[in-house]
């Protein structure tokens, strides 16, 4: 990592970083584009609100789900969002443990993205149940109704996997933010901000002892979070793999899902960071080289996903089970061939452009590809869930799934929730981990050599 180091004043580089991050937060008015984005996001959030109200009044019948395809878009959305929520912790924890220092410029935003995505993801399994007001039946709460969760069900595993992941991510994110919140507190001009950031900073003074404890805790949390990155999506994939639906019942699902999740997570980080970096003038902090590194990971995971698609087809053939064979034939060539085609194109074919450096450095191309990867990954879940269910064992119970407008409204609404939270984050919280970036500067290590 190279920075424009100022030899005369070794603190200047540090100051520059602090300024860059804080100014975006401290200027009296956010850029116009932020307002535009916020209005759009709030509109979409409104759509979510209306959809949920209508949903709770009427029932899950407002969606296209039916007796054959019992899980439709809501579960597609769930898996999609939980996948998005993978990049943050991966960047924060795994790359931290692997000493990938370029991660520091994006890890805060990626973690925030993770938390918001997990929030969106967590919404769907709850609202997709027939009686969401009883969703707490899934929790092992002592009660006088003689009820206890059924731990053989992968959905139970999901409850624990997702809630653990959500909790750890929030802790990790918040803990990492404490020194930066203290910086915000110290620079705050008005009373409310001083008070708010003061409370959030938990009395951080930047003493050596505090730093020591902080570093230890961060390392422990990173070590805790690392297996979670792999476990959450593995567990989510069990929802499918443990069942006996042809097309779901495959052992490749856990690694395949994890790769896909990281893939979509990175694509989403790119989708968010490229405009944010420009809007908030963070080009100096989030460097081109960082973006390029993320493109490389996207390329790698995309290719892994492609490999998984291929293996799936091979195993279906090699299994000799006619149900499996038909399920995969039907995916590629059946009534939903278009979804399969979209999935392969967006997830496997197009990311190959990242082999070329021009594509890895042109923000426009990256942006378009990242969005397409997200589209492709949404369709991957659609293909897995819907095409498998629509044609299972008995041909008499085959049908074609058609979504309703409310399906679309709920999906759009979840994006509204996600973007609204992200925009609020951009405005009110340190979007770059100031202290960590400083730590990677050569100046930070000047005295030790």
């Amino acid at each position, binding site marked *: 990592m190279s920075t424009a180091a100022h030899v005369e004043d070794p603190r200047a580089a540090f100051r520059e970083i602090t300024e860059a991050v804080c100014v975006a937060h401290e200027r009296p008015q956010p850029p116009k584009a932020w307002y535009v984005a916020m209005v759009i996001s709030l509109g979409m959030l409104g759509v979510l609100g209306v959809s949920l109200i209508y949903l709770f009044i009427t029932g899950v019948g407002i969606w296209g789900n039916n007796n054959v395809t019992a899980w439709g878009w809501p579960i597609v959305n769930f898996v999609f969002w939980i996948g998005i929520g993978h990049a943050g912790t991966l960047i924060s924890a795994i790359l931290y443990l692997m000493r990938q220092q370029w991660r520091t410029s994006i890890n805060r935003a990626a973690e925030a993205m993770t938390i918001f995505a997990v929030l969106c993801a967590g919404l769907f399994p709850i609202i997709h149940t027939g009686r969401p007001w009883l969703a707490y039946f899934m929790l092992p709460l002592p009660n006088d109704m003689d*009820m206890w969760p059924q731990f053989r069900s992968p959905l139970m595993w999901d409850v624990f996997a997702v809630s653990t992941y959500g909790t750890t991510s929030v802790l990790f994110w918040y803990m990492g933010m404490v020194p930066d919140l203290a910086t915000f507190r110290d620079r705050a001009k008005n009373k409310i901000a001083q008070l708010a950031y003061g409370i959030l900073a938990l009395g951080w003074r930047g003493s050596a002892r505090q730093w020591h404890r902080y570093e230890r805790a961060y390392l422990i949390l990173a070590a805790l979070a690392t297996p979670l990155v792999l476990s959450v999506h593995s567990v989510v994939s069990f929802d499918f793999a443990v069942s006996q639906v042809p097309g779901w019942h495959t052992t490749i699902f856990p690694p395949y899902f994890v790769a896909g999740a990281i893939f979509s997570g990175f694509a989403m980080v790119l989708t968010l960071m490229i405009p944010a970096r420009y809007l908030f003038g963070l080009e100096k902090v989030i460097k081109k080289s960082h973006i390029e590194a993320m493109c490389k990971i996207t390329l790698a995971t995309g290719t892994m996903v492609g490999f998984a698609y291929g293996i799936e087809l091979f195993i279906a053939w090699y299994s000799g089970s006619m149900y499996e064979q038909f399920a995969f034939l039907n995916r590629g060539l059946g009534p939903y061939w278009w979804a399969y085609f979209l999935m392969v194109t967006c997830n496997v074919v197009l990311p190959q452009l990242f082999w070329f450096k021009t594509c890895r450095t042109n923000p426009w191309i990256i942006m378009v590809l990242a969005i397409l990867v997200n589209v492709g990954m949404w369709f991957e879940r659609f293909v897995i869930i819907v095409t498998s269910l629509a044609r299972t064992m*008995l*041909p008499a119970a085959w049908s074609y799934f058609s979504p309703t407008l409310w399906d679309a409204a709920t999906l759009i609404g979840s994006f509204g929730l996600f973007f609204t939270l992200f925009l609020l984050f951009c405005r009110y919280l340190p979007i770059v981990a100031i202290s960590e970036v400083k730590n990677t500067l050569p100046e930070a290590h000047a005295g030790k050599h």
Partner: protein
Amino acid sequence: MSSLGKETKYWRSLAELESSDELDSIVAREFPDQAAELSDPLSRRRFMQLMGASVAFAGVAGVGCRRWEREEIVPLSNRPEDYVPGVNRYFATAMELSGVASGLVVSSFDGRPIKIEGNPEHPFLAGNGPREQGNKRTSGSSSFAQASILGLYDPDRSGSVRRAEGAGSWDDFAALVKDQKIDPSQVRVLSEATSSPTMARLRDELLRRYPSARWYEYDPLTTDNEHLGTKMAFGRPLRPLARLDRSRVIVSLDADLFYFHPAAVRYAGDFAVARDPDSARPMTRLYAIESAFTTTGAKADHRLAVPSSEIGSILAELEGAINGATPKAAGKAGRFISALAEDLRKHRGRSVLVAGSKQPPAVHALVAKINHSLGAVGTTLEYLREPPGPERLSHVESIKSLAADMNAGKVETLLILGGNPVYDAPADVDFAAGLRKVKTSIHLSEHYDETSSTCSWHLPRANYLEAWGDVRAFDGTISIQQPLIEPLWQGKSSIEVLTLFTSGDYGIGRGLVRTTFEAQIARGGDERSRESAWRKALHDGFITGTRYQSVTPSRPGSTPAVAEVPAIGPNNIEVVLTGSSHTYDGRFANNAWLQETPDFMTKLTWDNAALVNPNTADELGIAHGDMIRIRLGSRQVEVPVYTMPGQAKFSIALALGHGRKRAGRVGGSVDDGIEGLGFDGYSLRTSDSMYVATGAAVEMTGASYALVSTQDHWKIDKLGKEGAGGYDDRMPTLIRSCDVDDYQGYKKAKNKDLCFGEGHEVKLPLGDLPGRNRSLWQEHRYDRDQKFRRASDGRTVSRSSLYKWGMAIDLNKCTGCNSCMLACQSENNVPVVGKEQVANSREMHWIRIDRYFTGDDVRDDPRVAYQPLTCQQCENAPCEQVCPVGATIHSREGLNDMVYNRCIGTRYCMNNCPYKVRRFNFLHYQNRPERPGGSLEDARNKVRQLLFNPEVTVRSRGVMEKCTFCVQRIQNKKIVAKNERRSLRDGEIVTACQQACPSDAITFGDLNDPDSQVSKAHKLAQPANNPSGRGYELLRELNNKPRNIFLAEVRNPNTALEPPAGSDSKQSSSHG
């Protein structure tokens, strides 16, 4: 019951009590809600009245129900004998359809009838050899009988007397007759077809008293052709009753033996007896010659699809061929006729021909002649003679001459007893126009329908469960139609209204029926013996010895030649009008259960359609779902096309009874702005071509229409059909079938290659490895005495499971008649969801009947297989394992129970069910305003709540449900057995579907009892090392261990038409 000792009028509503229209309107203005409550027949008070009334007659009559005119309702201080609140009681009664009754037993819960079953004791239904189900005899019932209970609680039924000028009352109407405002001597009566002796007695009385009065009878699905045909042959009308159980060869000519035939329930049972491949008796063979698929064609070993109008000439050729001539017809038809003739010759005296009511009288006459020459009479065919009565015109002639008189202004007063002629009379007689010219026209009907709105008077009619009557079964056995409840809507029965004309006052139904009974049946004897005969008749539900006389007519002479018809082809398209499985003839149009039950062949719901052969559709340039205009002379109708495999070429079949305008809020109501369901076939019907019309033309309209069926339309994409592991590959494993010779050979030699061999099993790779089928979990055990190692502590424990419930469904017997579906709907409070929900595969039926087409020539000559599918109650249930809240769990007896209270609706169980038999309440189906007929919350619809079976939870939105093997019936019988300190006997528990099945295709019982019927059936299922028994578990390779097994279909093809399946490859190709 105590009387308070003063003459208090037993009032039925506030309006009646006060006799004040003004008060009514004041109340309505002031308290609109309360007004609805007060006039609501279901207000609590009203319900208590009804209930009390039932209780009252239960206590006094003991055997049945009667109406009590003046009574005070007070709470019971002493419980009447034999009455335990909350315990079902059963009453025998009968339901008449097109003049033929079926004997029924109706359950009554606290005074309200809630479930209908066939009367197992009824001599006609039971046949000669009682069909045993373990120790308990069952007799099936038709889907119409099953659904008729919904009609009783139809909130759209008419509740008041209406006249052209406005509201009226029964007294107003009586005054019309009493004050001589109409001349009863000139009255003309149009009755629906009825076999009621009381009706006949009153008719004769009326005609005796007023010789110038006229009596007409009309039934839109008339079976008169049979009468006319036998009259041609024998000089007098006779009723042929085929003895399918004795037959070796059955030939059905356009007859729907197992659905629309008046004796369908009996025929289905007899056929099942004759088709048992495991009995010593050789199996019968069924040939069907028909234009549109019927249940008969679906079950036939050989089916010839020819236009209905050509069946006469085919029959003539068949007659020739039997006598040794070579048939003129070329190709398949020729081969078919020769082979059939040969088969009939070989089985003289053991074969029978049956012609359907759509065929003209000449065909029936010829059939009678051929049956005679084959020696069928007395063995496989019985002729019954109806008691002599006044010569009646045929239904068509009746309606024609009545309409002609009305149009000529010759009719002053017309009394229409039931029926709906404005809607269902042939279009050319112009009944409606004639009716408007009648000065006083009176319509007695359950609904204010098309005819009522054209008449000057409308009288609400009592449902058959509300009124006394007497009716005759197909063989003439008389049943007393015993009411179970006071009329909900102040209706009166036909005989009660008719008495007004014969004797000047409304009759009391019970008295009228009793009078007939004493005059005609219990003649002589003292009062005590007559009373006990009456009680016995009510108790049994039939009167023995009242069967029509069986006669042996002499050999018919020459019969008129069957009319030659110009060949059916693109320029001469045939239209065949059939009954509707949804509405019968239109009368059940407001019955949402029937409307939502998929048709036995098309699987269409909520609609009818023009059935067109797929190749014909290609030739005519029309496609499935296109709206076409069928022109027939000056008449035309616009209908959507349903391309139906196996439909005769250039013959279009259209079900009558749809497109109603005033059926009610389900079937279509002009007043409520609700469009009719489906398309009105009657607009094409003329009196000279009641069923079959030729010379039709088809035009495109350019529009298309969304037809909704519960199953994929037969035309699936190429990949789905032929792709690896697709439809064709799966069919032999899902529907096992083999030829009877192979099956017998297999049974003798245990040579599994003969049938159900390789191609019928899904072999999963590594499937044979030891331990492949081991469960992840410790499996449940259900054997009577068992010892097993407990996983938790490794100790050996012993446990005893008393019962192990299991089911077996015999595909060989199932005719796809839908009775089980309706019985289940009725028993288990299964909601109706409406067309748009069915379109999205959200129908709620707990049992469904999958219909598959197979064969090499699916378009022109498919074979049909039915597979009733309900929860298989897997021992290793995939649904249970994935439920996060334990809402679906196993009982100790091996039932896969649903705990509705726990269910939160994740629907994971539904995904993991390979049979797709779970049903989810995506919406609040009972309380949706969009639901056909409206929400249950609607004040008008509260009456529907009375129908619910109180023993089955009414499920709310967001909850999963599915078949429970009628767990409430199991528990009830277990309680009885426990009280009697014994274990349950085989056959004591009968599930709703099993009880309704006319062909006994469903067996249920305890698998721990090695002698139970169901255990015997399960023994036909393969042990693990012999995968070739007749019994098989569906999707066995998944190791779900279903508790239901299917018994494979065993066919009996004629080797002359179908070379025996020598090799396995031939065999599997013949399946698909």
